[in-house]
């Protein structure tokens, strides 16, 4: 009696969890970043896309490094990140095609209300970082190969500061996403570089406030790419291109602009039909 019941149970379990037959479910896997997903953008722009095309978008939220790696392995159909240099290399190495610039958002530097480095209100990122290093004020970095982390390192370089010297004392690498890093910064009264989107949705601010914003250098460009079907034959080329096309269409660009948190727009569409 029991053996039969067990067999039926396991057959049911196997069936219910069996992967849908290859081409029959209309969906794509989109590898993007945790900060993008946590900003809530996808919740806003994907429903109109799915309504229009019937294509379900499965969002994988990872760090930029991991998102690109997922694309390299062929485990995603489309990659949507914000690290221009890494994206161009991705295409140059033959892993991606049809790269298009989609939108930008901006970074801000947040810091403790007490502002030990005296940078609050500044519009000069590089100068602010110099002051933070000079004051040896605690700084929480993501340290996780993400687009945000890469941008942060570029700013330190521009400020001519070697953060390796500060590691372990005032410069703290959390090795994690934006949210956990902000949690750490709030807990340690540290400065941190974050995208505005994550900051606006972040609920555990404690004494943290925006210290530096508005610097053009803080603008963060997003690019979308189709994973190269020549490299990975199973990539859903048509469905993926439907997404790439839509997000750079007037309709998609308007959806991006329409996303607001507390009345504030986070992402600024800037697709221009450029021939590379």
């Amino acid at each position: 009696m029991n053996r039969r019941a067990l067999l039926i149970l396991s057959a049911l379990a196997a069936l219910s969890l069996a992967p849908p037959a290859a081409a029959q479910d209309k969906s794509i896997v989109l590898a993007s970043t945790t900060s993008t997903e946590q900003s809530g953008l996808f919740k806003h722009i994907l429903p109109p896309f799915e309504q229009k095309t019937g294509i379900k978008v499965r969002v994988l939220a990872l760090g930029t490094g991991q998102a690109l790696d997922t694309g390299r392995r062929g485990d995603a159909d489309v990659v949507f990140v914000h690290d221009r240099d890494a994206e161009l290399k991705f295409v140059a190495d033959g892993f991606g095609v049809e790269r298009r610039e989609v939108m930008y958002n901006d970074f801000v530097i947040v810091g403790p209300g007490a502002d030990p480095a005296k940078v609050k209100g500044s519009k000069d990122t590089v100068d602010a970082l110099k002051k933070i290093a000079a004051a040896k004020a605690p700084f929480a970095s993501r340290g996780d190969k993400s687009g945000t982390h890469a941008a942060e390192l570029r700013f330190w370089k521009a400020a001519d500061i070697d953060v390796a010297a500060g590691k372990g004392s005032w410069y703290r690498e959390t090795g994690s996403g934006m949210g956990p890093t902000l949690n750490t910064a709030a807990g340690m009264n540290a400065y941190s570089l974050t995208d505005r989107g994550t900051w606006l949705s972040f609920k555990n601010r404690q004494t943290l406030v925006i210290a530096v914003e508005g610097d053009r250098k803080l603008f963060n460009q997003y690019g979308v790419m189709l994973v190269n079907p020549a490299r990975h034959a199973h990539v859903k080329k048509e469905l993926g291109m439907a997404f790439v096309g839509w997000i750079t269409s007037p309709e998609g660009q308007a959806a991006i602009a329409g996303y607001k948190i507390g009345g504030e727009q986070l992402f600024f569409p800037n697709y221009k039909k450029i021939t590379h």
Partner: protein
Amino acid sequence: MPERDALSTAVALIAGADPALWSIVGLSLAVSLSAVVFASLIGLPIGAALALFRFPGRGALVTLFNGMMGLPPVVVGLVVYLLLSRAGPLGDLGILFTPGAMVIAQTLLIFPIIAALARQTIEDAWHEYEEQIRSLGATPRRSIPTLLWDTRFSLATAVLAGLGRASAEVGAVMIVGGNIEGLTRVMTTSIALETSKGDLPLALGLGIVLIALIVLINALAHAMKAVAQARYG
């Protein structure tokens, strides 16, 4: 204070019958229960075989399974990910980032627990039963189903231990599932996500729901055991 809000959040979550929450709970149960079923189908016979047969290398295998009870979930997740990735040997199956991959990872994670605990239970039972059932005509191989059935209450505890481990882990399902909303998001990965977003009351609330669920399942299993034990001694 996140702790104070957490309890009211938990109650609100459950009372509100939020469909998103219930689909996450449903998926968590489906994945972990399926994993337990498969892990039992694999682990119980292996445990029985280890208990009943003597062969070269048996001691090493027993030690190995005992050690594998402590497999780090995130390592299992990484290994399964590398196997199921398109770039990996089983990539053509195309099951990475689906619930199926999560079931596979959890099954691999918990079958050593079930096998090791079953081995101990059955070895002890064999000690008591061996003469009698050999006398009645059972070979060691034929004894396996008999012993599995006779020790079913102790084995149920082993299975529940496996279920507990599966429901509680986040490392494996996060890596092979990808925490995709609406597809592979389960309770533990949701809690990790909400924590990383800084929404601690929600994270704690989900945690309370998860613990309540596990306690409920265990209570049910205990009640069933008590009834059956009263019947069969």
